[in-house]
């Protein structure tokens, strides 16, 4: 390897590390939606009609982050312009009800409840085993990105591991296909306790665009409830970072 070429690449590389992942706001990102207070036209459900995942229930207007794929069709459809998307990547929640966005929600509403036990057990070291069960490789690429030179979640002691035996949490992507249903279960069973489940992306949380697809089999989620829901299609690496750090109270 030519050392001068190497030094030149090093100089170009500069400092890629996002110093404060808590403060970073990705430019152009379609993140946390806000619903303006007000009233809808009589009988109007234009937003719900265009939504590909039934994420919106009209009258009173409410948006489910666990179903939303952030396509923004509803923004253009709403005649009252009540829906807008901010670049805020903090989308995760610890309970399904916290995934609901309602008119006039405070911009800093807490959706992830930090948990003292989780903080004590995993606050300094958390090992994650990822399983894709019908994920389209977008969630997987973004989860991989959490470990790249920009986001570098290893700095918080958070790492991806190959074996479920080494893992504290199962990070699930995809709607769970029938042909992966057994594998997901055996992976979970191979993990030592204490362990917890994280659902990443609209597919894993609600089935998303595949909620009614023929190849999907979600019975595993009836038996094991996620502790953390990370919305997005796919979620931004910062969304995932906030989710985990909030849960661990870091």
């Amino acid at each position, binding site marked *: 390897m030519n050392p001068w070429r190497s030094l030149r690449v090093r100089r*170009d590389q500069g400092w890629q590390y996002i110093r404060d992942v808590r403060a970073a706001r990705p430019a152009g990102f379609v993140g946390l939606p806000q619903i303006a207070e007000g009233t809808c036209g009589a009988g109007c459900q234009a937003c719900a009609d265009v939504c590909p995942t039934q994420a919106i229930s009209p009258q009173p207007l409410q948006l489910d982050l666990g179903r939303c794929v952030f396509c923004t069709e509803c923004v253009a459809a709403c005649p009252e312009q009540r829906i807008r998307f901010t670049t805020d990547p903090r989308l995760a929640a610890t309970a399904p009800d916290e995934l609901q966005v309602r008119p006039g929600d405070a911009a800093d509403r807490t959706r992830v409840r930090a948990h003292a036990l989780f903080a004590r057990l995993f606050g300094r070291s958390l090992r994650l085993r990822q399983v894709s069960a*019908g994920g389209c490789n977008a969630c997987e690429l973004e989860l991989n990105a959490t470990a790249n030179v920009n986001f570098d979640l290893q700095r918080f002691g958070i790492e991806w591991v190959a074996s479920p035996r080494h893992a504290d949490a199962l990070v699930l992507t995809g709607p769970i296909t029938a042909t992966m249903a057994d594998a997901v279960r055996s992976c979970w069973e191979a993990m030592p306790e204490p362990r917890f489940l994280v659902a990443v992306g609209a597919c894993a949380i609600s089935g998303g665009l595949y909620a009614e697809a*023929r190849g999907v089999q979600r019975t595993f989620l009836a038996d094991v409830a996620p502790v953390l829901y990370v919305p997005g299609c796919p979620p931004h690496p910062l969304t995932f970072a906030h989710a985990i750090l909030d849960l661990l109270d870091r």
Partner: protein
Amino acid sequence: MTVVVRWPGSALPPATAESWRADVLARLRGGARLVTLFGRRLGDQVLLTAVLQHPDGALHVARALALADTGYRALTAEHAAAHCFERELVEQTGLPLTDHPWPKPLRYQDRDQAAMADHPFWQLQGKEVHEVAVGPIHAGVIEPGSFRFSCLGEQVHHLEIQLGYQHRGVEARLLAGDPRRHTPLVETIAGDTSVAHAWAFGAALEALADVAVPAAAVAARGVALELERIAMHLAGLSGLATDIAFLQGASSWGRLRTTAINTSMRLCGSRFGRGAVRPGGVRMALTAELRAEVAANLRLLQHDCAHVDDLFFGARSATHRLRGIGTLRPDVAAEIGVVGMAARASGLALDARTAAGGIWHEVPIASVVHADGDCLARARIRADEIRASLAWLSQVLERHPEWPAPPPPLPSLAPGQFVVAIVEGWRGEVVHCLETDERGRLTHAKVQDPSLRNWLGLAVAMRGNEISDFPICNKSFDLSYCGHDL
């Protein structure tokens, strides 16, 4: 490129399975290439469709009705490139084919995982033979699939790749509801190829609705598509560098990918180009401020990629590890129907962009071909294509600085038509075939990701290599599991 074939919904094709088979084989012997082949069950018959591309680039559609209980003699017996199509045909329609050398399910569609446990993997006999089974869950943040290696010592004699774990039922979903609203779904067929799939699907719908897309919108689609190509090539190169422990390449190409996908996000709100393409046009705004930002990002990519390429391809430790590994010979690549960048790395000049017209005609893109067919060729071709795409993007952005507003909803689809649309995604050709019934509703949606054909390329390229070469061979092909499984 798209081709529209009017197909009267009520009329049945005149050809029988036998005459269709003879016609397709004659065309293939005459130098045509099989683009896709599939069937649809119609009561006790199966409507067969084959799309061929003649050497002059023209597409030809051949259709016939086969009797569901009789079938026909598999084309694969004489033309290996039909192997995956005919396995799928049997799985999707139940049509019995004789003489298929590999008659097993392609993706265990509509079955559960227990059925896959008894998959009849091909077995190598012998005292010294050992098998290595990998998957479906792999040791990384990656999609699932099953690999079965038959080895003699460290040497792989045969690899069988069994997929299907990612089968969600995309094609059936596309038939439910209004197809003009399905782009978000199409963008997740293979999430790293969102733009190419959205474009192919959109082009097919536009042909059915008889809507012309403004030239500037086609240019904007090209911008989104090439950004997707650059981003995924950078991801692939970064992964390849990781796999051979060339850490500077891994981290530099990795962060350059961040620049590429963040550029997409500035244009359409998504790092994966989602929302960029909508039937009838695009949903991206290019303001003066954005133009400057995009131009600056492209300059940075051009500047920094050149330096990383120099470092990596000038390092003997890197090239030595990749040279002569996972070689797919040109004749074999052609025989089994490999497409896209993997085909171009094996000397085959296959690139739908060269014949696509529109923006590709206005600003031709330099299509790169390498002859060696090894991991090094598949790495080089990605670096070269990044360079070609960056140069192309700068020209296109200069010629088309204004992009049209989001399109109005498409009018209704014409009845009784069959349409094929092909877009050259970063892995290769993405093919969407749509057909409407006599009332203009979709009756068939056939989706094809290049991965469907290229997985066999990886399996064949592994023969004679060491099992420890698998990660770099796999990364060099960089195929999609969900794109295959649908």
